[in-house]
């Protein structure tokens, strides 16, 4: 029996869009690539030296914010 297993264990800190490319040859998955296509806006660098009262405004623009998991947390 053929077994298909697709695991997405944890995709965190990514906004609502990306690309997924799956190459299947004769029923066998050869490669799976995920691309994070959201432009990097460097939010962590923007908030340095700003008043905490401005963060809700900054956050509105990052409401569905986007930082690939490999980036360091704030």
């Amino acid at each position: 029996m053929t077994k298909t297993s697709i695991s997405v264990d944890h995709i965190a800190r990514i906004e609502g869009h990306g690309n997924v490319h799956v190459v299947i040859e004769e029923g066998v998955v050869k490669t799976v690539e995920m691309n994070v296509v959201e432009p990097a806006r460097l939010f962590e660098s923007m908030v340095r030296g700003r008043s905490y009262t401005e963060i809700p405004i900054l956050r509105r623009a990052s409401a569905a914010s986007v930082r690939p998991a490999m980036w360091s947390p704030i």
Partner: protein
Amino acid sequence: MGLASCFGCQLQITNNEAHLLEVLGQIDLSYWQLSTSGSMPADFDVAIIEGAVTTQEAAATVRHLREVAKVVISVGACANTAGIPGMAAANHATRAGEVYDQLPLAAGELVAPCSVSSVIDVDYRVLCCPIDPLEFLDVLSHALYGSNKTLSTKTMCGDCRRNETTCFYNKQELCLGLVTTAGCNARCVNLGRPCNGCRGLSADANLAAARETVARYGVSVADFDKALELFNQTSDLLQEKE
């Protein structure tokens, strides 16, 4: 087309539920990342761009759209003033290294964030962060049927006078309405919040007089200047007026 942004302005367009069917009856929606999964057609009558330009690829995309579209509309603060992404424009080259070990390859070839209208000429603009859904429909109808209506250049304080709302400066609170482009009917002030300047600096703004006023009401001029950066970091107008 969505560039560096939160897609919130595109979402605002979908929030026009009451009018969407009527709008869709007047256009042939050929490409919209947020709501369709088709590929981009060869040309457009009207291209609508949200977001700031933050990569070389994005700059190439907007130049391409300008070539193939008869009319270009830039929507939202990011597309029109570089908005919040513009906050990363100053010292852009060294910024990433300050807070991240490394940028992923997917980040692309970063450029200092700038507005769409600084890369190409745009025909119509819908300002604000996020845009007002009905203002978008108004501008779209101008693009579809032609209009020579121009955006207001005046500052917002007159709107508050007409709305008979209380001035935040009377409460010693910072508000950017006194230098920000009018046109939203002082929506935030009507909701009890000071203006944060998301429509961008008004062409009619008098910064020297504004700073004098800020100081006279006992509000920090340094705070005023810092708040002004939020949506005007890359503004030519701000440089000119300084």
